[in-house]
């Protein structure tokens, strides 16, 4: 396994994340239909297709790619998810400024920045049944891993269990907060998207032969 994520590896990771959302977007919309407005899968699919297109159109340079992806996703016009996931990638780019590859401490810093960026946009805390519930543990899991593969594997697992944990919560942010108890029993769609993306990151990294 490589000990740095360079442009090419990042692209593989991103493509794998795109594929995860492609495969699961219907489930994401279904989850959003319990408390929200049922469009999260559509929005995420559009965001990921834009991501994929941006890889083709953007200069082949790591921070620039992350920036362009973030900006493209911001423009998805799909409600809360666009600005939040857009901010995620744009904040990654800020922390990756000047770097053409990421070693493990840099990767942790980059994801810390992504989390901080998202948190600047929302007052949602862990437990409020949002993407924050998957993002916080995923980013935390990245910090103390011995190598990149373990870091990304742990992050994916933490994101997944963070997403799973939202099943029992009552939504306190986003559209779903107005739905009362309707969302209890199913995981938050945004948190589920975060888990899919981190799973993709790990798979994309791992498949690197």
């Amino acid at each position, binding site marked *: 396994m490589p000990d740095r994520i360079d442009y090419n590896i990042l692209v593989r990771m991103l493509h794998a994340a795109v594929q995860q959302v492609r495969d699961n977007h219907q489930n994401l919309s279904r989850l959003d239909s319990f408390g929200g*407005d*049922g*469009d999260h899968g559509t929005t995420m699919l559009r965001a990921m297709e834009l991501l994929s297109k941006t890889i083709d159109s953007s200069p082949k340079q790591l921070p620039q790619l992350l920036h362009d992806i973030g900006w493209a996703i*911001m*423009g*998805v*016009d799909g409600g809360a998810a*666009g*600005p939040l996931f857009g901010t995620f990638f744009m904040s990654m780019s800020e922390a990756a400024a000047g770097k053409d590859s990421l070693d493990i401490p840099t990767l942790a810093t980059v994801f810390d920045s992504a989390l901080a960026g998202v948190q600047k946009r929302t007052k949602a805390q862990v437990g409020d049944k949002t993407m924050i519930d998957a993002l916080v543990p995923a980013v935390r899991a990245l910090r103390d891993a011995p190598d990149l593969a373990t870091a990304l594997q742990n992050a994916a697992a933490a994101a997944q269990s963070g997403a799973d944990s939202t099943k029992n919560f009552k939504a306190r942010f986003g*559209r779903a907060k107005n739905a009362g108890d309707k969302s209890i029993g199913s995981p938050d769609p945004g948190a589920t998207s975060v888990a899919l993306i981190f799973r993709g990151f790990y798979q994309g990294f791992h498949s690197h032969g």
Partner: protein
Amino acid sequence: MKKFLNKPVNLVAELLEGFVLANADKLKLAGTNLVVRTNPKSKNKVALVTLGGSGHEPALSGFVGYGMLDISVPGEIFAAPGPPRVIEALRLANRPAGVLFVVLNHAGDVMTANIVMEMAKKEGLNVKQILTHEDISTGPRDNPDERRGLVGALPVIKVAGAAAEQRRSLDDCLAIATRMEANSATLAVAVSGATHPCTGEPIATFADDEMVVGMGQHGEAGTGSQKLASADKTAEIMLPMLLDDLKIKPGEQVLALLNGVGSTTLMELYLVLRRINQLLAEKKISLARSLVGQFLTVQEMGGFQMFIARMDPELLRLWDAPCNTPALTK
């Protein structure tokens, strides 16, 4: 509900094409599907810009035109536009006189607005923001973050837009918008749901004889599920809640706006307005102005938004000032 639609992914682009075609004397598209005036306002006047989801026609792009908005940034169906098109709009509107940026309090809109305002600051654009949040059903007056922005955006845009045409400064326009907003209160009632035009999914469901006071624009549950009441009774239930929230006292003047959200007819709204007028008279409050129509809709949903605002002479003058937009012409 059976709708005349084409491919969902093209819905907003296509509806905008038809919308500007139907209002070609007032509007056109510019940049990335921004709705702008056909005859732009003089650069010496403050510009007004807003953003918001589509599917609520004629809102919000229907308020673009003389005396109201300069640019509207329509999002996807029921979804705020993302920051890129909104900053594009602010750059386009930017001018020494300044830009008033009107944002309705909905999570997605506010998130976009916050990002865009940070960018605008960095870029040195001359923009000030006003947030509308007059829905009394979602939070107390002292917790305005929780209050959604409903049809109250219309009077805010109307008075601030009139002030802008009169070459008032950006600070004046903001102060006027803020005063209008602070004296506004809206309460919605819904009796039947709608379907999302892209997914075909129902937005809210109702028991046969149920009406829900406080239901939001996207079918967000209200607190006041009760038995469907007559027009008179519904006015008697809702009006006092609004007067109470605003602490309107005898002798004061109010504007009443009834906004049908879809399949509730003008006929019904006229009945409600009639009763509002009677109730206000009993309390010695003067119904200085009223407006009844379908301005901010939620597809074919049944119900309406009742809006009341305390008016002062300047706000009344600005309310009466000429405007020429698809949805409101004076």
